[in-house]
């Protein structure tokens, strides 16, 4: 067997805090061979990033590596003097981080920043360095490298910035590139390009790749070998094919089960009960036992679980791995629609426009307009879910907020129960606030950190119904908490004491407090882990069935759309380019943009062989959108007409509309 490039053996890292010791990484071992792509998968808080930082010895001050070895080309990185380590870090092993916004210095041009990485480690003349930097910029797929040399980070899009980060990491031709959630902050279309870039670079340069992610799709797309991490330990190590063909560890299986998709529409997603155990305690036996459906007495008998070798390179940390096959997967509970709608009036949006004026000069004259939402029409029937899909910056959130009059509407109608909400004054709109509610993306910023949970829940009731007594309100709060699956004793706690998923439940409870019939869900699950996402989606689905709620579900995640939505509207630069039932849009996409979105989603299902449509990474600014069809600058089917004529909606079927010149209206 060849010597691996990097071999991590029994690495243990802990955080020393005054009150407790947190064993973030508790004895992980794995090898990365030369030229191999290794993926470390796990939910947030399981110690993925810390293990990468431990290998590079970039830990914060209160963290300490207590045991283990990291062998790189025969020498142990953990016992190397800092001076030698500096020649490895960023040169032989380099790292890219999740957020390209904060990793670049805003006052330096990108050329200088890449040059800095080259400069630090090689002595050469200025012109040579410049040449090298330009070739690097070219290598990471940025066009016009000469001109880009002197641009500043804020002039680039998120995807471009991540490319620059990769260029910096590649500056010294490393043997190993560690990518810590490299695409989490990016749109799907950009994500697929960055993954493609990483794959290509890896092949060209023969370097190894260590990718840290929570997204199984990315793993399937890029990895050769997969390790699943849970509570500071690895629980399964396998080759990609073995892993996706047959995940063995119960936790890995649950991760797959928790993923929403079209086939699971009629059922509740399988979720994990309980929470990730505290890493400060000590464990007996299997760390997953508490949440495992297959657990038995033997799981917690041994003090420390060993590896079960399933096949040559497929190892599982589970004592009952051979017997799992015999146990039937616990059946999913079917959702039954029980609700009867008291009121089935739909929300009808007609020609909605939300423009933001651009003001300049001393007198603040309006010099232009950002057309965030530009002539959007759709209908949200009662008791159904409409998904609004699109890349970031396309105006999804603006549309959602404008419906609730949280942003002023420039033009257009929002009809509900025979009333045009868009023309109502704030005072007159107040009675409709009960009907329309919103849930936000970030569960951490959507609750006031200095208010008790009880007060947060009561706020809406008190604001909109002054006739209720305190006892009534308290009773209502308890019912709400029960509905979202939380105990009523949480009322006297503060939001920060809850996990992301629990917070999102509280946000849902807050929205439900005033008994709405329509909820705008602004990416409510995109900040959550897969298993927690499943819980929230289940809750939303359950509530819809019980109470006949309608959701306007704003998201960029097509698998969630497939699971939850009834109709889908695809938005691009403020306009809806395609609208139809979930089946129409996802299975028979018509618009080139929709096709690109769908194909950009990484998948592990080998049967769905597909070609990745490369969308150029140059989404135009909504303040200066291109003429004609907004999408023509990135469309591969672009025709001369597209640059001039704004496409009108074409009915493909009674439920499917598309705004594209490729389709000719057949009715007129």
């Amino acid at each position, binding site marked *: 067997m060849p010597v691996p490039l990097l071999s991590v053996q029994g690495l243990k890292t802990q955080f020393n805090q*005054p*009150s407790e010791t947190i064993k973030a990484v508790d004895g992980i071992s794995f090898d990365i061979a030369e030229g191999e792509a290794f993926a470390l998968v796990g939910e947030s808080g399981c110690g993925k990033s810390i293990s990468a930082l431990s290998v590079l010895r970039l830990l914060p001050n209160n963290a300490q590596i207590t045991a283990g070895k990291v062998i790189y080309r025969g020498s142990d990185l953990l016992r190397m003097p800092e001076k030698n380590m500096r020649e490895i870090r960023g040169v032989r092993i380099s790292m890219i981080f999740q957020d390209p916004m904060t990793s670049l210095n805003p006052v330096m041009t990108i050329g200088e920043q890449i040059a800095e990485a080259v400069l630090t480690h090689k002595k050469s003349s200025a012109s040579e360095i410049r040449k090298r930097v330009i070739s690097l910029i070219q290598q990471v797929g940025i066009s016009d490298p000469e001109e880009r040399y002197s641009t500043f980070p804020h002039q680039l899009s998120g995807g471009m910035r991540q490319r620059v980060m990769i260029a910096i990491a590649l500056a010294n031709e490393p043997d190993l590139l560690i990518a810590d959630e490299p695409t989490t902050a990016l749109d799907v279309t950009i994500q697929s390009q960055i993954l493609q870039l990483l794959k290509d670079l890896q092949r060209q340069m023969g370097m190894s790749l260590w990718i840290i992610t929570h997204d199984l799709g990315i793993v399937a797309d890029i990895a050769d070998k997969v390790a699943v991490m849970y509570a500071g330990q690895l629980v399964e190590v396998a080759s990609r094919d073995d892993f996706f063909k047959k995940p063995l560890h119960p936790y890995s299986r649950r991760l797959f089960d928790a993923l929403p998709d079209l086939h699971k529409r009629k059922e509740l997603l399988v979720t994990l009960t309980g929470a990730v155990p505290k890493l400060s305690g000590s464990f007996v036996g299997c760390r997953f036992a508490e949440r495992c459906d297959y657990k038995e007495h033997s799981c917690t008998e041994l003090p420390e679980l060993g590896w079960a070798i399933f096949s040559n390179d497929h190892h599982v940390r589970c004592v009952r791995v051979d017997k799992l096959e015999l146990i039937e997967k616990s059946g999913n509970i079917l959702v039954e629609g029980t609700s009867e709608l008291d009121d089935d009036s739909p929300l009808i949006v007609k020609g909605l426009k939300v423009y933001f004026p651009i003001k300049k000069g001393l007198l603040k004259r309006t010099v232009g307009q950002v057309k965030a939402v530009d002539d959007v029409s759709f209908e949200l029937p009662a008791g159904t879910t409409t998904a609004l899909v699109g890349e970031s910056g396309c105006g999804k959130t603006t549309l959602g907020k404008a419906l609730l009059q949280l942003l002023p509407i420039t033009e257009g109608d929002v009809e509900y129960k025979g009333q045009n909400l868009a023309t109502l004054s704030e005072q007159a709109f107040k009675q409709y*606030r009960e009907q329309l509610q919103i849930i*936000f993306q970030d569960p951490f910023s*959507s609750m*006031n950190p*200095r208010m008790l949970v009880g*007060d947060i829940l009561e706020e809406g009731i008190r*604001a*909109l119904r002054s006739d209720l007594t305190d006892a009534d309100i308290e009773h209502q709060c308890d019912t709400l908490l029960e509905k979202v699956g939380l105990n009523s004793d949480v009322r006297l706690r503060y939001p920060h004491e809850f996990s992301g998923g629990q917070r999102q439940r509280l946000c849902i409870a807050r929205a439900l407090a005033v008994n709405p019939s329509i909820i705008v869900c602004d990416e409510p699950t995109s900040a959550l882990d897969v298993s927690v996402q499943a819980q929230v989606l289940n809750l939303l689905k359950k509530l819809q069935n019980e109470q006949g709620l309608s959701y306007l579900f704003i998201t960029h995640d097509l698998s969630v759309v497939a699971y939850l939505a009834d109709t889908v509207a695809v938005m691009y630069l403020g306009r809806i380019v395609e609208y139809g039932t979930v089946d129409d849009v996802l299975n028979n996409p018509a618009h080139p943009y929709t096709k690109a979105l769908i194909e950009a989603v990484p998948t592990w299902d080998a049967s769905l062989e597909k070609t990745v449509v490369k969308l150029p990474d140059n989404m135009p600014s909504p303040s200066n959108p291109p003429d004609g069809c907004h999408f023509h600058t990135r469309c591969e089917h672009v025709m001369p007409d597209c640059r001039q004529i704004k496409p009108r909606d074409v009915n493909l079927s009674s439920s499917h509309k598309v705004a594209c010149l490729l389709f000719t209206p057949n009715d007129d």
Partner: protein
Amino acid sequence: MLTLLWTDIAIFGLVIGAVVAVWRSSKKEHLRRPWAKIFNNRMGVVSLTIVLFFLLVGVLDSVRLQHYEKLPDGDYSEHAKALSVLDIILTPIRLQVEKTYSEPFAHTAYAKEMNVDEAGVTQWLYPRLLYGGAHLNNPKSDKQADILLKIGKGLAHGLLAWLGFIFLLRLTKRNLFKTKLKGVNSGLLTLLVIFCVVGMIASLGSFYHILGTDKVGEDVLYQAIKSIRTGLVIGGLTTIVMLPIAIGLGLMAGFFRGWVDDVIQYLYTTLSSIPGVLLIAAAILMAQVYMANNPALFTTLEDRADMRLLLLCFILGITSWTGLCRLLRAETLKIREMDYVVAACALGVGRFQLLKRHVLPNVMHLVMITIVLDFSGLVLAEAVLSYINIGVDPSTYSWGNMINTSRLEMAREPIVWWSLTAAFVFMFTLVLAANLFADAVRDAFDPRYIE
């Protein structure tokens, strides 16, 4: 008979307000928790104890009684003099006035004087003080032992008083020592230190000038203690004047934006571009003219001095809100875009409630830090203003006045250092304790803060 000055009323108002606030918050579970956190923090309890002690001194100094002085012939004078309870407690130090400068614990004056002895021989020597060490026959040899003895006695009295205090506490609260609050013991130990210091001062004070005397022979310790009230008034009242303006305008500017923001920004930019000293000087001079023209309103010297102090607080307050206002505006601009504010809007919460419940609590940490940092700045500002004679009345005891007079003393040869040192030590203790306490409060009231 009680008399009240305007600043006394303000002080009592503040203290009563604070007591009511503490009492009300002790009724609510979620507000009791942060206080438990403070009492769990050793530094928090120690600093709170010290601040409370200073506050006690200030309050004692604000309770004034009509006092008829005893004349040498045994009768009482007809002129009533308003004396505070503190004055009465400090009577020995207050009345033992020497001729001029003397060093701490000195028994002789600081400068030589010409003296004619019984034989008629004129000689330069250090004269004995009237009160300092006057009980000693042979000061050179006995003084050290006497001082140590008196310190020992003071410490013993302090310790006894402390034990008595604890005994009383146990009678009322049996489970005092069983609480898990770490801070309680630290607080009791701080109290022990305070008791011992008070005991030492009590046993030494009537025999020596512990911190020396100033130019007119007045005891510096007495001056420094009397200045506590002035410091608290200037720090406290100015803040009370400044806070509503700063918070109200800052939140409004940040929250409503548009023309409201423009007007408020214009206001504070204008105000902060006028030199503050000019405004203060103008206001104080106007007030002086007013007082001179209306002598009927201000009958006593104390009334006038007090009115000047009150005015100074108002003017300092009106000129010092701009910095905090600017900070709050910026923070509010950020917070109003947070999702929880948008969510509250979607729930139809009114604007006033939005500001009160969502914005204000989230900017309180800024307010707290600014108040405490400003506090020391204000005490110093008072010193600077005294320098150009527009600060507090020269007859008012204040650290500023002490620092101001020590300007000349520092230039003397040999140097007179004790006035400045006394003012410095007292100010330092108060400001440091207030700072540490504010830190503890800020941490305790931030629900996100984890120890």
